[in-house]
């Protein structure tokens, strides 16, 4: 309609590149033992890489990248916050009107699916 639906494979490849780079950087950092921190950093890297792979086209990726730049409560979004509200789930969903919220949700769902597939492949490759 307004903007085209995302090309899943291109998002997958872009996300894969960025995420692998982030994970390599993460593994080289000293402060990360076998700890909770590494989990949180991985989660953060996953989210950021996805938003970076999508780019500034969509409102939700812009919201994620904005949150990084402001360094505010970055990925302190509680794990699966019990928000039964679509606005709370989609990043940047608070300040949107309903129509754009729905389209952003659609795009967000496809990107999440792509992300899940890539991460699963990473797991399978690393420990078959």
């Amino acid at each position: 309609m307004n903007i085209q639906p995302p090309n899943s494979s291109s998002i997958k490849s872009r996300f894969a590149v960025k995420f692998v780079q982030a994970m390599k950087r993460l593994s080289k950092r000293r402060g990360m033992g076998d700890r909770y921190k590494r989990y949180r950093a991985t989660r953060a890297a996953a989210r950021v890489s996805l938003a970076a792979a999508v780019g500034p086209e969509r409102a939700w990726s812009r919201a994620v990248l904005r949150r990084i730049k402001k360094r505010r409560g970055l990925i302190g979004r509680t794990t699966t916050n019990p928000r039964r509200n679509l606005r709370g789930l989609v990043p940047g969903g608070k300040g949107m009107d309903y129509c754009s919220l729905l389209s952003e949700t659609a795009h967000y769902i496809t990107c999440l699916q792509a992300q899940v597939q890539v991460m699963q492949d990473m797991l399978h490759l690393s420990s078959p």
Partner: protein
Amino acid sequence: MEPNVEAVQPQFRSGISGTKPGGMGFVFDDIHGLIPGPPETDGTSFTALLELPPPQAVELLVKEDFPAKSMPPPIFPSNIALIDRASMFSVFASADNPPESTNILSVSSSMKTDSVKQEPLESEHHRNSSSPAVSNQSLKSIKRKEREKKVKESSKKSKKLEANEASDGSGEQLPYVHVRARRGQATDSHSLAERARREKINARMKLLQDLVPGCNKSLQISGTAMVLDEIINHVQALQRQVEFLSMRLAAVNPRIDFNLDALLAVESESSIDNSYLGMFPPSIWPEGQLNSSRQQQPWLLDGLHPGRVDDTSNFITQENSLLSYDSPPNSASLHSSQLKMEL
């Protein structure tokens, strides 16, 4: 009668749901004389916002270009008697319908009540200018007939034409502004804008419904709470899945260096053959999870009910096969509701 016609010139429109080639020609000649020469083709019509306008409910009296083309909108007198007579025949305005007058007796009988609907017609001008859109229009019109029909039975209002003229913009087809006023609906700019907005929302809800597995059961297009719930569940499930996967990846990370080339190769494979990836996970997941999750950070498993991990694994298995569109959608909602209860 003729002074009436020239003076007021409202436009008249009624709902039709079927095409009946009718032999109403005999009455035409009466009314033919009443219709002023050139039809009005400018100004007072809207075209639908997102979808193409359903050229639904046009009741026209046909003039000399009766046989072949789609109709120019004639101008109806506001005389009730004439309108009653006029209600006896109605013509589809879309291109694929025969220009013969069609009559829905039920509609006409309902129309023979006191109030007369005057709604803006879509001008011939529009339709001719968007001829490639016409075929789409006809398709969409067929799709929208049922919805239109429901709308038609609603109450009718009579509105002045000038208000519509004032609120309408130019006669050309901007991609944004114009909205078709359907029969039985109000025609002021507020409700039109609202209707456009509603159509937008419905279209996007439909898109989301196609995206989320398990929403196609209910055949309604509207944004019921169920659909929204399903969407929310799906988003939450995907986010949880991402977290779970990142937890596992964090555990795997220090030992193995990530192989980017192989990953991209797998990704390009999956773009070629989508089912390939779908086959993998269900076979591998249960074993891999049960082994590695026990070895992993115990902090995460302590807080969790041990049953939850199994549920998650089952759920993720289902999710994976869902993502490859294999398993029936019922299980997804079942598992997600299970997980909800666990939480």
